[in-house]
């Protein structure tokens, strides 16, 4: 299953996860499990309006409630802040206006759920009681509920002082697109829309901040994917030096994107703890998660594909309107990622996509697992299906003709990343991967299955989608490896764990070099006091970046251990091996010296030389810099049955063939893929974050916003290819987001195929049974509701 060298004893194998021992007994420590003595609880008062001016805030009644310690508005907090805004936007020349969100709304609210005030009380119950007593006088303003309508010339503006709703505009292009289209023999156009969803980690967000008067330091536990970013921003906003704040990520109950953002609650809770001199906790509840945690995916696409008579792509062009939400909480990376994902698997000679990023009175959008790529893949794959049908070519075949051939790897595309670097597809064999998926799904035998089913009045369909994903976004991740005088191995990293087995991955890589016993390795991830710098969890990056740093650092420590031990044992380095807690002479295990002894020998004794002559300590710190992204790829094939009477969809089979290079831990790779696939099924059929025309969210419970459960999961088969990337020493590519990317496109393709007797064209996800029945029988839906 794995392509890792067979000589490795841990890496590439399904070793037990180090995370499980605590989690399986309910002994994990999530942010809500942290309860320092004297703890106070925060509740936020949030806007019920999508857009309104704040005329007045009266906190008197709330302050008077017994058990309430403080009620803060921005007026109260501003004197203690260096800036009242969160300036977090990624750099880009594309912005047309600055939309830095405030720490708390002060004069205007721009989405339902925006925090206006915070109550700190003895219990969460009391804090919520008091929040209900805060009186805010709102003057409602016209809301902007739709990103396309937002850009109409006479649209109201989502921010009352803005001159327009255009947050940013940018174009990604190469080649003579219009000339290609002018002469192309075939053109296929589509209008597509993809709707909003959330990440919905099972653990919502949360912050605990504790002032420590003995150390004159604030310790902040946050359920975040980016503790170092939070640390930087907290220091900046509160005007404190780096040592005065320590940010720790405890166990994190899933992230899936939105937890990489720095949020107002993190600074408000930290400042409240500082002002009150007491620990303060805020745990986001699910209702808040629906209106205060960032979301994604609302996009409207107009795209056109030019091909020759054999279905070979000549050019691709179009426009994209992206719903930015009300603030810039990250940047323009989602539309950029969406558009970049379109051509990646294929040879596309000419390309232009113009993106407009529209401000709306909704929760800001930032990456959710997949980060724009599911949308881009959906657009590309819908166009290829359209072309296949128009040209009478099999849908698998038209893709095969256009996939970047294996022999052209590495393939330098004309595309550029958001950092301006050229996109070079480093490795892989995309046509072979697709062939594997099609064969696994018995694509060739499907027409017969479809015919047999139709004879019984049943509608089966099959669909395929390809993706190529840039993983392991650089530039680096910090990892240090140190053997303590106890002989234990401590690994500290800027990477952040959120359920994706980061501790196991690092322990595996380090133990591989240092004795093979993972139980001797302690991994500290997500603690700014343990790692001087870090970027954190996003972009399917941590195995690639942190894994590479860990591997190199551990290898350097190993070299030093062997060198020092050779001196101590009076043996040749080449004759030594590290086994468990000791270095021994190969074949003569009684000739050994413990790691503890080696560590102590180089810890230094006053007046004596350090043995080995390579300086003190057994430690190495690495930030392997990898700018180029490692491109993973895959193909999803879905087979569905649609009940043409109800619009209900059953996925009968899903095959997912993929290539993430070497697999550090095959079972974890499968686990990551399966989670992504489930999320993709949700995006295709279930998850729809609904807003009404006043931008009021209408799916704000988990009974309304539907996450896939065990009974909705189809039989899934995962097939593996291993094309190691030359870009990192482990030959690995990221896998955290892969599963979600092609699944909506494959399911849409399958549904369209199933409903071809009705002439149905699928141009959106998610697809509800109501949507499908309306497509099957347009007259039914046209009749009076």
């Amino acid at each position, binding site marked *: 299953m794995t392509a890792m060298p067979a000589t490795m004893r841990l890496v590439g194998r399904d070793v037990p996860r180090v995370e499980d021992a605590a989690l399986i007994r309910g*002994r994990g420590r999530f942010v809500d499990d942290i309860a320092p003595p004297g703890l106070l609880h925060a509740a936020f008062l949030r806007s019920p309006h999508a857009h309104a001016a704040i005329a007045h805030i009266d906190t008197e009644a709330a302050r008077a409630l017994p058990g309430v310690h403080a009620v803060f508005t921005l007026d109260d907090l501003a004197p203690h802040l260096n800036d009242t805004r969160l300036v977090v936007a990624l750099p880009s020349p594309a912005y047309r206006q600055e939309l830095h969100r405030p720490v708390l709304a002060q004069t205007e609210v721009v989405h339902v759920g925006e925090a206006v005030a915070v109550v700190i009380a003895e219990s969460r119950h009391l804090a919520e009681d008091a929040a209900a007593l805060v009186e805010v006088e709102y003057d409602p303003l016209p809301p902007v509920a739709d990103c396309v309508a937002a850009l109409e010339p006479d649209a109201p503006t989502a921010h009352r002082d803005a001159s327009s709703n255009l947050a940013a505009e940018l174009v990604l292009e190469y080649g003579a697109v219009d000339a290609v289209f002018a002469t192309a023999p075939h053109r296929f156009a589509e209008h597509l829309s993809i709707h909003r969803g959330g990440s919905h980690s*099972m653990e919502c967000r949360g912050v605990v901040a504790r002032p420590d008067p003995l150390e004159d330091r604030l310790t902040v536990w946050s359920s975040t994917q980016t503790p170092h970013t939070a640390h930087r921003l907290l220091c900046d906003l509160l005007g404190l030096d780096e040592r005065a704040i320590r940010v720790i990520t405890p166990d994190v109950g*899933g992230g899936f994107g939105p937890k990489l953002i720095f949020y107002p609650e993190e600074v408000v809770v930290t400042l409240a703890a500082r002002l009150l001199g007491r620990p303060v906790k805020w745990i986001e509840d699910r209702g808040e998660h629906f209106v205060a945690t960032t979301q994604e995916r609302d996009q409207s696409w107009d795209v056109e594909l030019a091909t020759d008579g054999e279905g070979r792509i000549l050019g691709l062009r179009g426009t994209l309107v992206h719903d930015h939400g009300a603030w810039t909480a990250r940047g323009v990376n989602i539309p950029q990622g969406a558009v970049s994902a379109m051509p990646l698997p294929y040879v596309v000679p000419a390309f232009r996509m113009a993106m407009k990023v529209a401000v709306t009175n909704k929760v800001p959008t930032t990456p959710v697992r997949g980060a724009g790529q599911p949308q881009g893949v959906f657009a590309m794959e819908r166009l290829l299906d359209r072309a296949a049908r128009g040209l009478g070519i099999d849908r698998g075949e038209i893709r095969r003709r256009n996939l970047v051939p294996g022999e052209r790897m590495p393939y330098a595309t004309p595309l550029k990343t958001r950092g301006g670097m050229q996109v070079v597809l480093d490795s892989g064999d995309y046509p072979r991967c697709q062939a594997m998926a099609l064969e696994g799904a018995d694509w060739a035998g499907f027409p017969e299955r479809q015919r047999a089913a139709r004879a019984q009045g049943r509608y089966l369909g099959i669909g395929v989608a390809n993706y190529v994903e840039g993983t392991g976004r650089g530039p680096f991740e910090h990892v240090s490896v140190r053997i303590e005088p106890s002989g234990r191995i401590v690994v500290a990293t800027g990477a952040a764990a959120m359920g994706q087995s980061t501790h196991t991955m690092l322990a595996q890589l380090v133990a591989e070099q240092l004795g093979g016993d993972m139980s001797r390795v302690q991994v500290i991830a997500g603690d700014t006091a343990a790692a001087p710098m870090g970027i954190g969890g996003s972009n399917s990056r941590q195995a690639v970046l942190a894994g590479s740093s860990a591997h190199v650092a551990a290898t350097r420590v190993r070299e030093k251990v062997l060198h020092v031990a050779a001196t101590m044992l009076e043996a040749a380095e080449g004759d030594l091996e590290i086994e468990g807690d000791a270095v021994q002479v190969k074949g003569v295990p009684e000739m050994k010296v413990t790691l503890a002894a080696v560590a102590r020998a180089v810890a230094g004794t006053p007046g004596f030389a350090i043995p080995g002559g390579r300086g003190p300590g057994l430690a190495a710190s690495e930030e392997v810099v990898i700018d180029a992204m490692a491109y993973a790829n895959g193909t999803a094939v879905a087979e569905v049955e649609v009940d043409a009477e109800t619009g209900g969809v059953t996925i009968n089979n899903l095959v997912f063939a993929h290539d993430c290079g070497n697999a550090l831990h095959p079972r974890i790779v499968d686990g990551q893929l399966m989670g992504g696939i*489930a999320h993709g099924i949700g995006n295709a059929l279930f998850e729809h974050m609904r807003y009404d025309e006043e931008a009021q969210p209408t799916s704000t419970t988990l009974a309304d916003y539907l996450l896939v*459960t*065990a009974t909705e999961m189809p039989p899934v088969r995962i097939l593996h290819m291993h094309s190691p990337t030359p870009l990192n020493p482990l030959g690995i590519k990221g896998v955290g987001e892969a599963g979600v990317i092609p699944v909506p496109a494959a399911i849409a393709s399958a549904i369209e195929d199933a409903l071809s007797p009705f002439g149905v064209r699928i141009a959106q996800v998610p697809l509800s049974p109501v949507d499908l029945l309306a497509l099957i029988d347009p007259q039914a839906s046209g009749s009076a509701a």
Partner: protein
Amino acid sequence: MTARRIALTVNGARHEAETPVRQHLADFLRGTLGLTGTHLGCEHGVCGACTVLLDGRAVRACLILAVQAEGRSVTTVEGLAPDNGPLHPLQAAFCANHGLQCGFCTPGMLTTLAEFLKDSPDPTEEEVRVAISGNLCRCTGYDSIVAATMEAARALREARA
């Protein structure tokens, strides 16, 4: 009127404590007793993370008031296996099958399945899926949980035989 003293058995040990009457059982277990293994994912009865056994039956602890547990017996994830003893077969199978990633939904899955396997010692995969259809997991896609449950069911049957 706003608080009451209650006595109940949790994981085999008797506890007496005062609780606000409006506090649900999950907050009581977590906050008052410090048993933080029971997690809260939605507090509106959908996600299943807070599932505990009340007199042996799987229930959502966010939908029961602590005062309603007066005199009852509660089992949480911490009570599935002795403190330093071997894991419950479900726990062992979850670890062996990568049935948990972030681990947040895991306590609710385990308690739900512990009851289920008592009632249905020889289930089909489909029955397992129905049994956990009230427990949301965002990490695993559920297959590994189903596989773990089938393995645990086998182990439990063999132990009984």
